[in-house]
């Protein structure tokens, strides 16, 4: 998949990359995973294009309704809000919440160029067929006019395009319409007024007031003299642009009208919206109408088949259904209420089945596995670290499963989860959830065999390396040669980590501060020449540092105090503040107590252990100092024994309800570990109880 970057006006600037994201998904997603925002029908090829909230535009072959899936057009990273088919079906233009407009080769399904002029979600497109002109508008209140022929001619070298913008909108634009001859363009916005321009001159023509809420759907008639608007206030209004006034108000919907469609002659309007109903109404006699069908979800978009006999309907659910519409007037009732209530058809003619969208997730305590539940109540297990699905548990009890998989460990949060596309998207950033905050033992994580020397690994570090595994380091970087010597055997420019790889089809997304997408590519494509160049421009320094320079992220230190337990009778030693990495095993602290504080081997009265809670002795014959220490010294954290459990300091804190009151007890001597004020500047001793009260929130903030 080639990616032609075309700059538009803003072009690609050096911007600070905010986060690196990736999607855990199947290689081929044959079904929409969330709602479908827009549809286009290609009459020549009988193909249906659908713009999914899962960021994928899919092409369906309507002749083969058993297996309609043809291909996917994947390059957006957020909801695709609108699509238009132009150039007689050769090109497709899409608008997305990733703030871009993309131009596609519709037949071959690849992205030709990306337009980045919008600053916010692009919500609507309008197309003037006779002039091959497309307009895009969005929440940034701007409307841009594009010449399709110019857009399709863009190449990597010739990547500038001129656009005219229509100004004057004061509020976010949610709908846009242009007549085929391109003589009028209308926008609907939260301003509740329709604004009309002449796209040829970019001159403001008029403002039409009348709606009481956002205008979400617009249709212009062929000559641009009449306009139909559907609003969140539940009404459809017919406007005369010549008279600059509303001619008719059609009230058929109970809730907001989100989608409109007219017959060729502009005589009938088909409308759908939040109330899930589709009505067909005679524009001139609004009482003459029929309820076409009742969908299962709010209606987002409708397109008519070429024979004008049926509709393809997209809703906020992933299925796309085809409904028969009445053959003109004959079936339209004269406002007989009973008939209105009864839908014309109860069953859709055809259905393109959609897949389930992930709606809920729970990050397990190990901060590596995620349980999800989708719209069909299927529970899945994902491994974030390896970017793959582990298990499909079917329709089981999600909460039960969460409980079952609870582990007594503590690992800091190091990623964010996003479900807006209905697929699991993981964000790695350096915000409040620093992706380098999770240090774990490789052995515990199951990454290294047990016989190996235990190594500390950083989840974020490993994952970033795996995601950019195929990225060949830029030859022009000077340090390259310096580093070469240090690396043994793995190939001078080979990335990746020593433990695992992620699936090659995983999309990796770089986005800038504020969330706009900068670059998207698949893991396996990172080795390509074009991709390499773009990566060199895009990959932020903090990732380069890890992936290329192979530097380790910084350890996280926890300060704490060690104190004999009150019951030990031993006078408290010096109140030294100790600092350790948060992944240090509590056992190590016990060893420290044994070796440094007590002096190894000086434990004569070991047998007379006072009834210390949680002291379970297991084979006292072990030779290692570690195990001796474990036998001789018991560390208590909030009265829970923890030195026998191979847990890290951070886990010890977590286990005991995040209370940093660690008590060490030797067989005869108990020691307490205090974790003082996080900032560390307060060196005064505090009572354990008050320590809990005062310091816990701070500690928690630090650790979580």
């Amino acid at each position, binding site marked *: 998949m080639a990616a032609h970057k075309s700059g538009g006006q803003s072009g690609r600037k050096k911007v600070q990359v905010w986060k690196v994201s990736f999607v855990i998904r199947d290689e081929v997603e044959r079904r929409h995973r969330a709602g479908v925002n827009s549809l286009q029908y290609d009459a020549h090829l009988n193909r249906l294009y659908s713009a999914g909230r899962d960021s994928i535009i899919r092409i369906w072959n309507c002749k083969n309704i058993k297996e309609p899936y043809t291909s996917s057009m994947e390059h957006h990273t957020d*909801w695709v809000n609108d699509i238009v088919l132009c150039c007689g079906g050769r090109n497709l233009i899409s608008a997305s*919440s990733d703030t871009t407009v993309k131009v596609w080769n519709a037949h071959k399904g690849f992205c030709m160029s990306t337009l980045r002029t919008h600053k916010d979600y692009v919500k609507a497109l309008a197309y003037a067929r006779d002039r091959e002109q497309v307009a895009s508008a969005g929440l940034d209140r701007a409307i841009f006019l594009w010449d399709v022929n110019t857009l399709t001619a863009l190449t990597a070298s010739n990547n500038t395009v001129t656009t005219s913008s229509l100004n004057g909108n004061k509020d*976010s634009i*949610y709908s846009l319409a242009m007549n085929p001859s391109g003589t009028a363009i209308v926008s609907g916005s*939260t301003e509740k007024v329709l604004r009309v321009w002449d796209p040829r001159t970019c001159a403001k023509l008029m403002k039409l007031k009348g709606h009481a809420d956002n205008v979400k759907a617009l249709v212009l008639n062929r000559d641009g003299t009449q306009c139909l608007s559907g609003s969140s206030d539940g009404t459809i209004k017919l406007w005369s642009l010549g008279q600059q006034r509303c001619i008719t108000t059609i009230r058929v919907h109970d*809730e907001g009208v989100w989608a409109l469609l007219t017959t060729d002659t502009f005589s009938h309007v088909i409308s759908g919206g939040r109330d899930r109903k589709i009505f067909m109404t005679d524009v001139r006699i609004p009482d003459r109408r029929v309820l076409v069908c009742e969908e299962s979800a709010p209606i987002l978009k409708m397109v008519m088949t070429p024979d004008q006999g049926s509709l393809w309907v997209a809703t906020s659910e992933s299925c796309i259904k085809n409904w028969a519409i009445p053959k003109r007037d004959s079936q339209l009732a004269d406002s007989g209420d009973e008939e209105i209530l009864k839908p014309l058809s109860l069953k859709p003619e055809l259905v393109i089945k959609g897949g389930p969208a992930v*709606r809920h997730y729970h990050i397990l305590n190990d901060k590596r596995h995620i349980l999800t539940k989708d719209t069909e109540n299927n529970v899945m297990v994902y491994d974030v670290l390896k970017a793959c699905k582990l298990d499909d548990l079917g329709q089981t009890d999600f909460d039960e499963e969460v409980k079952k998989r609870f582990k007594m460990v503590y690992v800091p949060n190091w990623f964010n989860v996003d479900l807006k596309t209905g697929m699991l998207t993981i964000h790695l950033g350096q915000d409040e959830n620093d992706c380098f905050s999770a240090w774990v033992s490789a052995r515990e994580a199951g990454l290294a065999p047990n016989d190996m020397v235990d190594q500390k690994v950083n989840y974020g570090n490993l994952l970033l390396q795996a995601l950019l595994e195929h990225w060949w380091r830029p030859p022009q970087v000077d340090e390259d040669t310096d580093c070469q010597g240090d690396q043994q055997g793995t190939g001078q420019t080979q990335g990746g980590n020593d433990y695992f790889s992620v699936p090659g089809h995983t999309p990796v997304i770089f986005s800038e501060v504020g969330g706009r997408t900068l670059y998207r590519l698949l893991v396996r494509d990172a080795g390509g020449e074009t991709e390499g160049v773009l990566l060199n421009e895009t990959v932020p320094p903090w990732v380069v540092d890890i992936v290329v320079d192979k530097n380790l992220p910084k350890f996280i230190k926890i300060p704490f105090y060690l104190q004999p337990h009150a019951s030990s009778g031993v006078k408290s030693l010096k109140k030294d503040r100790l600092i350790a990495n948060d992944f240090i095993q509590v056992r190590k602290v016990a060893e420290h107590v044994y070796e440094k504080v007590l002096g190894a081997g000086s434990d004569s009265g070991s047998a007379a252990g006072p009834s210390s809670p949680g002291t379970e002795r297991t084979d006292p014959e072990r030779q290692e100092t570690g195990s001796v220490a474990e036998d001789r010294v018991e560390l208590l954290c909030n009265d829970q024994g923890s030195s026998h459990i191979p847990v890290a300091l951070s886990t010890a804190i977590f286990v005991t309800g995040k209370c940093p009151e660690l008590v060490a007890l030797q067989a005869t001597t108990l020691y307490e570990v205090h974790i003082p004020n996080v900032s560390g500047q307060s060196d005064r001793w505090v009572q354990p109880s008050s320590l809990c009260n005062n310091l816990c929130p701070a500690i928690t903030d630090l650790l979580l």
Partner: protein
Amino acid sequence: MTILLEENAAGESSSAPPRKKLCLSLSRRSKLVRVPRNKTAHVNKSTLENVAGNGFKDRKLSISSVKSNSPSDFGDSEKASTSLANCEEESLHSGTAMLNGYLPGDGHNKSSTDESPGSDTGVGCSPVATLCNLGNTCFLNSVIYTLRFAPAFLHNLHHLAADLGDLTSKQQQVKVKSSSLGRNVTGTSSGKSWSTKDLLSLGGSLANSGDPLQCKSRIQVATERLHDLYESLHAAEVKENSDPFQPDVFLHALREVNPIFEGNQQHDAHELLVCLLDNIRETCRFLADQHKLANEQRVVTNNVVCDALDTAVNIHQTSSSNSKWGVRRSWKRKKVSSSSQKNAASNGLPNGIGPEHPQLMNGGVSTHQPVTGYNFVANDFEGVTVLCTTCLECEHTTERKETFYDICVPITTAEQDSDEGDLPQHVSEVYQAAVVTSEHLRDLNKYWCEQCLRYNEARRCVRYETLPKLLVLQLKRFSSTFGSMVCMSKVNDYMPTPLTLACFCEQCCPIPEEKRPHHYELFGVIMHLGATIASGHYVAYVKASENVCDYYHCDRDKRKSSSLSSASSGGKSGNTFSGEKMGSIFKFFRPRSSNSSNSDVQSKQHHTTGNGVYYRHTCRSMDCCGVRLNRSVMNGGDSMMQKSQMNGLDVGVSVAVVDASVPEPVWLECDDETVRLLTRKEFEDVLAPKPSKSSALTPYLLFYSKCP
């Protein structure tokens, strides 16, 4: 401080004889001494909490006794001198110089106050009692003035204080009994007012022993002292003593609660108002909570009494009219059961105590009587605002309801309005537009939609589900937006202050203004003069009214009066609430009744007792802390309208008379020591836009009451 002084005197004189309770009195003494010290320099707060509580309890009980003595000037001055001596003695004990320095001044002040009624210096120059400026305390005075004239506020506050007093004494009684300290309460109670002292010391020991009383005390003290303050103002008005009253005792109590009012700086009147209402609300809440606790005790300790009384009553009543009996019984039963759940009142007083008056039964008002812990702040000042957020993508709306006590109104000037041309024509619409707002969440401030699982644009509206009976509007005059300095700049732009405000609650908004079921009428304004919040001056403008109708149909008083009369068989005796409870034991009401020697009151009393019906319909708390306008001044100001008010007052009672006969309200300009009468016209002039924006006296807090 004058009150504290008297109370010391009372307490001291009464406690002096029984020296056997040495340790207890000693402990108390040291505390009393420490209270003032704490006020000036607050060290060691936690221990002083108890102290404050004790002091307050002491005061609560003793005040009535003090008041009862006050009418006789001779006795009063004598008291003052003794108290002075006592205090000096105390200060000797404690060795606190500060106290010494503090009290004499008060003593001096007090004595001069005492002389004034004779000299008649100030009679006739002020419509109501006035408040001293203690040094930048106009923020305090303005709020006190305003609340005084807030409909139903004084009345409710009175009963709150009364209930609090009841509860305190009740708990102490219970404690005495249960702890079996051996002091046979009823035995020693005769005649001597040992109670103040003893209960206090007992209270102290209670507090020290970790009684729940101790943690609440500071807030309650402040509430109590606010009531005391109003009581003093009332007393001054009865005596036609026009010397400004010093609200220092209350101020100190307030500072105990909230240290931000420490020091002699100017403060935000709004902040004070919020603090005051919070205090009262918390006190109400406390009372309600305590009642729950007390219920358990009551089951043990009081049920016996209650039952006994009940049966006695029943016996008594069966002998009388039978026809109404069934009704009454069922009513009573309901009441008892309900009160055992959570309400009630002076739970100490068994609900069924005393034979009810026939009026009670006829009145039928008993069903909705307020109970102890009746949270009138919540009831009168609390409104509910609804925050609606609608995702513009899925159009799903989430609502969040919040309660509020005042509404902050941004100053919207005419120029600020957009080119849309929809300028609010009517004054009320200005407020509605400023307050019922809609906001568009967009750009980087998008809304996380739970349905879409993403950030979307959203519309957020603020609506008002219910507006309180007493609506407080704070005009956003102070903004720290420009200038990085600490001092906040003031917006001096004119904002109209309508005397009548259209209601803008959810129910009313869609209805055209004339047809809305309710509206609001201005009863008070606090104006601010000056450039910043920390400097300048506050003046309160209030609608002059004795709010007589607040006091009609007061069940709380009725019940108590009935109990009183049953206990003392003297309907006209009990004017004090605090006495009434302990009436049978402490007989505080006796001296109190002599307070009504004031001709005015007496005539009224005679009058009312003559018409028993009327008498019982008016809560006597009116004569404790109610507003009493100086008739001569009012008449002088505007004879015609005042006459009606006077009539209303003298007849004292009939709602119809008062309501119908107040055609044109007069306004009072309360500027610390000077209270001036304004006609409506004059008042409107005050509120009218001033030519010079900078130095004008600008409305800051607006107080509206709901009509009807």
